[in-house]
């Protein structure tokens, strides 16, 4: 198992390097000019100096190397400094945003909690709804409940979040007035009242994101349960005289959860990416919204770093899914 894990870890390195190169080259080939916003009265030689100050004067491979060093070597040092009060990163150049002139990572760290709160809660809620639905629709295959579940998950697949979001805002925020339509990230939770407000403002974005998660995972859960319910060991368990509850909820469920757990791990990064739209709809200032504003402001270092963070998340969760599968199902281990 250890060698398997190490092999997967080693394989992740070239993948990450390739992705970082792809992102870097994509931004490099793009014709956007960071000097486009500078007034025309600024003479060309001053513009040239400004370009150099932004770190644009050097050849391609040098800049790529510098970015990689900054991302993988200097930023972790900053993190260590922050936690342990050391001074590893002092005086070293970090990735600087063109928009705010402050280090990109500082802004990202400010924005990540909002995204994780909304996305994480939505994912957990979605899973908690999806798993019972999947179990019951597989146990009562082709029943009314199963048909309804299929229909609802079809709808969850088909209705994009940029439609469910406004729709829910119109119904629940405008007409019923139950929940606020904008997610207020400056809100501080310190007592029961403010907690209630926080809870209420989270309901709508969480509902939008959870609908998609539920649709996907309940389908997987159902299929996986159906596969297992017809196995021989289930008949054996019933023949032993175990109660139906124990057979389904212990024997079958535990075996059915193996593929579902990997699907849950694999779905994590996708939900981060999909949250971009939800964040825009509900005006949550998380990293998705940060990416959009950085794009419109032509803030290339920010865009580069954020896109790469999304890629790192995908590779990381793929790795977690692989290893989890090996841990949960001993037959899968490759060693």
């Amino acid at each position, binding site marked *: 198992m250890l060698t398997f894990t190490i092999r997967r870890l080693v394989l992740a390195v070239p*993948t990450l390097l*390739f*992705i970082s190169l*792809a*992102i870097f080259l*994509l*931004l490099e080939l*793009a*014709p*956007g000019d960071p000097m486009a916003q500078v007034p025309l009265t600024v003479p060309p030689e001053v513009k040239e100096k400004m370009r150099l100050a932004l770190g644009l004067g050097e050849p391609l491979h040098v800049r790529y190397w510098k970015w990689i060093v900054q991302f993988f070597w200097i930023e972790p040092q900053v993190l260590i400094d922050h936690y342990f009060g050391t001074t590893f990163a002092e005086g070293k150049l970090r990735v600087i945003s063109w928009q705010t002139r402050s280090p990109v990572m500082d802004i990202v760290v400010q924005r990540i909690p909002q995204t994780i709160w909304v996305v994480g809660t939505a994912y957990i809620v979605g899973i908690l709804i999806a798993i019972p639905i999947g179990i019951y629709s597989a146990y009562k295959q082709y029943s009314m409940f199963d048909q309804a579940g299929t229909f609802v998950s*079809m*709808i969850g*697949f*088909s*209705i*994009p979040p*940029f*439609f469910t979001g*406004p*729709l829910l*805002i*119109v119904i629940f925020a*405008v007409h019923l007035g139950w929940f606020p339509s904008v997610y207020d990230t400056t809100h501080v939770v310190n007592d029961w009242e403010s907690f209630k407000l926080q809870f209420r403002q989270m309901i709508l974005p969480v509902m939008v994101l959870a609908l998609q998660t539920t649709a996907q995972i309940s389908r997987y859960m159902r299929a996986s349960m159906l596969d297992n319910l017809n196995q021989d060991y289930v008949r054996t368990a019933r023949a032993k005289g175990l109660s139906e509850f124990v057979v389904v909820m212990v024997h079958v469920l535990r075996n059915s959860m193996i593929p579902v757990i990997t699907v849950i791990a694999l779905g994590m*990064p996708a939900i981060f*990416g*999909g949250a*971009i*739209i939800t964040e*825009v*709809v509900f005006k949550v200032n998380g990293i998705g919204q940060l*990416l*959009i504003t950085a*794009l*419109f402001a032509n803030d290339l270092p920010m*865009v580069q770093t*954020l*896109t790469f963070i*999304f*890629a790192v*998340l*995908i*590779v990381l969760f*793929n790795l977690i899914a692989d290893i989890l599968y090996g841990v949960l199902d001993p037959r899968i281990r490759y060693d």
Partner: protein
Amino acid sequence: MTDISIEPLPAKPPRNKWLDIWTQLGKHKGAMLGGGFLLFITLGVLFGPYIWTIDPQKIDIRNRDLRPIFTALFDSDAKVRWANPLGTDQLGRDGLANLMAGGRASMAVGWTAMLLTLGIGTIIGVVAGYFKRLDGPLMRLTDLFLSLPILPLLLVAVTLFREPLRASFGPEGGMFILIVSIIGITSWMPTARIVRGDVLALKEREFVLAARSIGTTQTNMIKRHILPNVLSPIMVSATLGLATAIITESALSFLGVGFPSDFPTWGKMLADAVDRMENFPERVLWPGLAISLTVLSVNYLGDGLRDALDPRIRGR
């Protein structure tokens, strides 16, 4: 004397495989409804503008902010007009005409991107499955593409490459090429994987061996023997591809990086309407329903196709 068992003559001539599939598909209510609706909406956006001849761009400031005709039923004060059954927007542009024009753009992007996705996916899948030497590298490439963050990259690419393509192909044409090719490049991977798996299995079958033994060339082998047999997984992923392409295009338009502002698409109409949805919820509803119902019907069609094309389920 030995018994010669005489096979009873088949009562009916053998049925065509595609006829079988069609019969099976007919039994799947969702697929028939979905297919019907998809046909209706495709024909609607194709030929609708010839019947409903109002120019979607025509600004009629006197008749702006009209409500849909049915609002008169429950709100007698609402501004309605029979000439604009779905109402008008804040510049007096007709809702129905815009919906059809937007549908044209969305469906055109959807179909073209789907065909491109299928093309790339099929070629890579067949090549990887058929030529052993290319299998490893191509599948690594597929894995790498699968770990790219698709939506952020789409956003980045569309924003950054918008200007030069607009300059060379015109604002609409450039955007169309950009969106279609980007969706194509970033969503071929599932098709390639499925096709490769099927080709690998097919390659070991006897008919391929027989074909090879009579000296079939590689090209003919792929064209005549491999491709027709991987058609069913390709068709299923076509439906999925169409649904994803329509949603992706609408998402890009919704985020404001899609087509230019005077060119309606469903996602763009939805995004424009969100600001005023408290007073005019129908402007969000029409394009949103159009996207959702189209994708829903495509998904149901795909579901039915998957069942119909699977010989284990067919005929039961």
